[in-house]
């Protein structure tokens, strides 16, 4: 990297204002020739920068690096930190949350963040109805969030919601004055913010090209301060082809890429002397959704038959070469609420045959595998092979996610079984239980159409109380019921296999963000 930087393009005005406020404009001088640069090759394109329209792990680098939220997840197992919050008060009924935000939090243009920015950000999410809207829509009404004074903001929920603090990690605070200035026809600045930024995060946008990605420079004035040897410039590139990303890291063109590569690509990386790898158990479970709506899968014996017909060991240890960890239930092993003594299903064809014999009107089943995701397709084939051994016919239909997604919430069109992952958007057992199996969430998140009054009761109760120990007991019971009911085929928890160039000294991995939070990365040389 030389000291010569090309001029700003899309966000010239905003970035210049921000850079001059922070002294970053000086980096055009040759004195910055030795700046530390970190380049990430991402498996998703960065076609959008608006933090309130994005809600996926694939593009989380945009939110984590350029914006701040009231709370933030760090480390593994994930720990929730009060990030922008100095003080929090919760009313006894659990419906009113009052926050005092930290002093002197500045946006990249030098403006001081106030509670009005937090209010505007929440109203923007509710108005745009995109991104993290689904997390807030049931508990916050538009117009109810108030700025009590420049540093105090108050949220009044429509009902108690124990995971409110957890989901606040997706309330990314934007510079309201800057966004308002760029609003067009009441669009809440959506067009402008799709290619610019108005954040206060650790890194400020320097250049953006939707075809390539985005380039950022460290925001010296970040309220959280900096460690001894932070990265100066962080570049994020969308590189769709897996082999190209792997070769790019091996050659040193990138410093890292996504941490969930196929086993054979990971093996190549591990053998390369220029690469060091980090391994950590994540919180991303792989399982088969079972459609309980349609017979014969509404019969627990049929569901148990398919659960016993899957070769867990063969899949996890042979096909995936042990790059994952067996997870007996839906809640990932490292997460609180996952019972440590939970007994899952094993590959047992005798038991599978027994349960199948108890089912009337057996019909061939259909698996909807996700095309382009080898693990999903391999799991489908493995289950097909196991079912064939017990005399159960299974047909596999491979479809892209864009085709499968609409069927997830259409009980009649849904496939009988779908092998897929449940990622972590916030680290709370509700993400895997209440959201996926509460019957109040039919046609939204509960794609299994599973209904058990006890599970509903426990999930609802666990959202009202805030004591974690009490909630843990409830989620552990839910986990056990889900296994007993064979609510899904729970297979494994993913391991993060981060591959980094040798000069990356340390990272701080958090499953929510997959080590894309550059502020925690250190390089040498």
């Amino acid at each position: 990297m030389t000291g010569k930087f090309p001029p700003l393009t899309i966000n010239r005005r905003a970035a210049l204002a921000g850079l001059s406020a922070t002294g970053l404009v000086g980096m055009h001088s040759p004195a910055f020739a030795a700046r530390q640069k970190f380049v990430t090759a991402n498996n998703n394109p960065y076609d959008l920068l608006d933090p309130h329209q994005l809600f996926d792990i694939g593009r989380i680098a945009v939110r984590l690096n350029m914006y701040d939220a009231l709370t933030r997840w760090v480390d593994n197992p994930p720990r929730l930190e009060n990030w922008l919050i100095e003080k929090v008060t919760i009313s006894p009924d659990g419906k009113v949350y009052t926050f005092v935000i930290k002093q002197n939090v500045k946006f990249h243009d030098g403006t001081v963040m106030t509670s009005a920015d937090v209010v505007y950000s929440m109203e923007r999410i509710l108005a745009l109805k995109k991104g993290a809207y689904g997390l807030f829509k049931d508990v916050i009404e538009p117009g109810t969030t108030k700025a009590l004074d420049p540093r105090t903001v108050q949220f009044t929920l429509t009902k108690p919601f124990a995971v409110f603090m957890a989901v606040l990690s997706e309330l990314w605070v934007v510079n309201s004055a800057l966004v308002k200035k760029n609003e067009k026809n009441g669009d809440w600045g959506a067009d402008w913010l799709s290619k610019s930024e108005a954040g206060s995060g650790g890194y400020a946008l320097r250049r953006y090209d939707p075809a390539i990605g985005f380039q950022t420079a460290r925001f010296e004035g970040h309220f959280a301060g900096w460690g001894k040897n932070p990265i100066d410039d962080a570049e994020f590139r969308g590189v769709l082809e897996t082999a190209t990303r792997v070769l790019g890291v091996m050659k040193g063109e990138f410093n890292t890429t996504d941490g969930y590569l196929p086993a054979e690509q990971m093996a190549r990386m591990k053998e390369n002397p220029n690469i060091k790898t980090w391994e950590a158990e994540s919180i991303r479970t792989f399982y088969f959704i079972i459609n309980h709506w349609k017979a014969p899968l509404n019969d627990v014996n049929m569901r148990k038959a398919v659960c016993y017909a899957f070769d867990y060991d063969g899949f996890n240890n042979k096909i995936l070469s042990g790059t994952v960890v067996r997870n007996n239930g839906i809640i990932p092993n490292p997460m609180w609420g996952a019972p440590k003594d939970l007994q899952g299903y094993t590959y047992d064809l005798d038991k599978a045959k027994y349960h199948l014999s108890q089912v009337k009107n057996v019909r061939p089943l259909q698996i909807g595998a996700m095309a382009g995701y080898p693990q999903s397709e391999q799991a489908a084939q493995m289950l097909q092979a196991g079912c064939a051994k017990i005399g159960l016919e299974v047909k596999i239909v491979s479809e892209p996610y864009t085709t499968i997604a609409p069927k997830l919430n259409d009980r009649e069109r849904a496939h009988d079984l779908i092998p897929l992952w449940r990622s972590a958007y916030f680290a709370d057992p509700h993400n895997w239980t209440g959201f996926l199996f509460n019957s109040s969430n039919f046609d939204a998140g509960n794609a299994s159409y599973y209904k058990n009054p006890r599970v509903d009761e426990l999930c609802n109760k666990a959202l009202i109380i805030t004591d974690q120990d009490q909630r843990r007991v409830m989620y552990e019971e839910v986990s056990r019921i889900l296994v007993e009911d064979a609510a899904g085929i729970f297979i494994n928890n993913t391991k993060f296999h981060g591959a980094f160039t040798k000069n990356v000294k340390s990272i701080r991995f958090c499953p929510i963000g997959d080590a894309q939070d550059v502020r925690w990365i250190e390089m040498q040389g």
Partner: protein
Amino acid sequence: MRILVLALRRIAWMPPTLLGLIAIVFTISRIIPADPARVIAGENASPAQVEALRQKFGLDLPLMQQFMRYLRDIVNGDLGISLYSQRPVVEDLLGRLAATFELAIAAMCLAIMIGVPLGVVSALHRNRWLDQVIRLATMAGLAMAAFWLAILLQLFFSMTLGVTPVQGRIDGWGPDQITGFYTIDALINGDGETFGKALRYLILPTATLAIPAAATIVRFTRAGVLNALSSNFVFYQTAMGLPRRTIIWKYILRSAFIGTLTQIGLVFGNLLAGAVVIETVFSWPGLGLFAYNSILQSDYNAIMAFTLFTGSVFIVVNLLIDIAQTLLDPRTR
């Protein structure tokens, strides 16, 4: 005058051709069982949220109504908003145009520079060992899958020899934009270092695109030259005692090149289509990568715009080829 009439006639055919193209692509993109509104809304979205998005993008309207609405917008110069980036599709397309054209033109030039001489040489050595080798090479060039060839080139030139970058268009963000062609912009800026870098990044994707194109050109040039070699005018010129070199490079090649020229028009279209694979493998930020990504995301407006755009380019290039052919071949006037 005849050329002008020809050009006008061709231009008059453009709207119905494009209309047919739009109708076909529109229908195919809408009947596949994908739901972009659901994908955009995300897996945590409620049905109401999905429905709101569907209404916003007009995806809830009857197919014919959606089509008429789309046509009306095109006439007004509006190709719609990308369902993903939320930006006008035209903006996204224009941002990637130069990258693809730089690559396609470089590949076309390379293909012609390799293909035409090899085609002539192959014809002049008909059925001898040199001809056999060239024919074998062209068959291999046509048969090889582009993504496989791309990975082979990456492994050999980037990883083993270390002489070319694995991917991308340039290290960092490229020179100040004037034309959008990095090589040309670097030259205009007098920046030799950037020019060199841009060239290094161009080598592998250009070679991958050019090899099958060159193979096609070799075959057509060879056939054209063989045809010309057996014609009366060559027999006459030989009898007149004209030097063999003059006959070949002045008369035979001109005659043979008319057929090759038509192929070049088609090859250019193939290069644009082939860019979808090549740009994905090399992470080249052009229209092909944009199309690939749009297909993955069921971004209807972006897919339609890309198809419409490449269709238009294809038609225009072929119009230019027709005009060039008329200029070269007096018989067509």
